């Protein structure tokens, strides 16, 4: 699908490309396709690409003398019909312990939504989420697909400290805090998996365009996986998705 894109200079050495302003899996797919095409063209002056829901930022290694030329090049790349790159995305199966000692807001959500805790966990872990992009914190995934019955507003007063690995719900979004951080989301569990590791390259195993599913584990399993994960030997389950 070809969208009507806008191209704008963003500062001295970046170009912002924008898709229609909505959260849409087709737009994500098109962004990833364009991003991959640019990467495959191996243009030396392009040093970094990053994307969000409906935008792609192309960052150059030096001040752009002629944005119009760069934009024409990009438009050609986007529109060329023979650029159908092979995109390998994966589905990552993320273990989550929803024990009450981690899921400190489960009780409140259960009351508010008139759902049992088991129901909340079931609804949270039966969805396959789409990774739209990584932002906010190193390794923080913006996931789409949260069950509508689990939409809970952010807390009016954010907590000063949320544990690393906390699995949380904020509005229509769910996510995992990759590092300790302040935050206003409702915490329902914790994952022993490291979503950000500055000692590995790349520092995140997940990429924009991948999928995530959560499955419930016991406290014992949590402790076992945590130990393996800290030692750097935990093998996370994943499969290649063809779509």
């Amino acid at each position, binding site marked *: 699908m070809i969208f009507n894109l806008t191209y704008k200079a963003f*500062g001295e050495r970046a170009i912002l490309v924008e898709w229609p*302003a909505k959260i849409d899996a087709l737009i994500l797919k098109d962004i990833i396709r364009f991003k991959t095409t640019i990467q495959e063209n191996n243009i030396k002056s392009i040093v970094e*690409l990053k*994307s969000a*829901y409906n935008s792609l930022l192309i*960052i150059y290694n030096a001040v752009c003398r002629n944005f119009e030329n760069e934009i024409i090049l990009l438009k050609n790349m986007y529109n060329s019909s023979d650029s159908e790159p092979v995109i390998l995305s994966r589905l990552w199966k993320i273990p989550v312990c929803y024990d009450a000692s981690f899921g400190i807001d489960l009780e409140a959500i259960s009351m508010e939504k008139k759902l049992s805790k088991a129901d909340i966990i079931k609804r949270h872990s039966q969805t396959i989420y789409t990774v739209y992009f*990584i932002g*906010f914190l190193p390794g923080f995934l913006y996931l789409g697909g949260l069950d509508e019955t689990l939409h809970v507003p952010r807390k009016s007063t954010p907590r000063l400290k949320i544990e690393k690995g906390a699995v949380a719900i904020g509005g229509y979004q769910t996510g995992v805090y*990759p590092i300790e951080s302040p935050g206003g989301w409702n915490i329902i569990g914790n994952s022993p998996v490291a979503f950000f590791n500055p000692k590995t390259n790349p520092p995140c195993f997940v*990429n924009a365009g991948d999928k995530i599913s959560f499955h419930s584990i016991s406290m014992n399993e949590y402790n076992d996986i945590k130990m393996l994960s800290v030692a750097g030997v935990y093998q996370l389950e994943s499969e290649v998705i063809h779509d």
Partner: protein
Amino acid sequence: MFTNWKVRLFMIKILKPGFYSTIQDAGRFGFQAYGVPYSGVMDIYAASMANMVLGNDENAAVMEMTMTGPTLQFDCETIICLSGADMSPMLNNVPIQNNRAIHVAKNAVLSFGKLKNGFRGYLSVSGGFKTDSVMGSRSMFKGVTEQYFIAKGDEIPIDNYIEALVKKNASIKMNYKYLQSKNIEVFKGPEFDKLSKNQQHILLTQEFSISKDNNRMAYQLEQPLENTLDAIITSLVLPGTVQLTPSGKLIVLMRDCQTTGGYPRVLQLKESAMNIMAQKFMGNKVSFKLV
């Protein structure tokens, strides 16, 4: 904290930490797609000046000192240079000057006095600071580097000093004027054209003062700008992006800023304007000039 050094490096010992000091180099590039901020020195001009005077690589890691400098002791002979804010530096209680190569004897103590101008000072040492390099950079950042600020008692490794290898550039002329400049050169941000003509006019003519909320992540400005724009769905930002919040606060993103943001982006600072901004503190005035 730095226990994994195979070769013993020379150290600088922190006797007093000052207000807020970190080690920074040019920054951490190539990881924006993973949500990792660039970090890096806030005032690139001053930091590269401090390195160039010593003949260092211009991106060598330096110590960035905010508002009040630390007190530190060298366990070795070396050559240093200070640049950026004038914090009344003293070596063994004798005043020294910024932007000069200064020989430091073993056990000498570097301290700072009154902040005379600017807000961020830079200390370079011959060969650079040698703290851990993580993801291609020594720039300290919480969650990425194990240590993320300099504390009392820290021993910070620096490069071995070999006099014969030092290339000094004693004759570099420093431009000090930017430390006093109020003019922040900007480009239109992606949402600039959505502002009304009146909002655009105010943004580009009014003086704004720096609020108490200013740090390596962002500078908030005191005077609000009436905001009638809709929120945007989370999009991409860069250091130098000026965001407009729903309550009308203007926020200038700095080097440690997040990679994404959901507020309209009304302006984008020219890279050289980032250096001017980095030297501002609470109460200072700035005005935006479209280039």
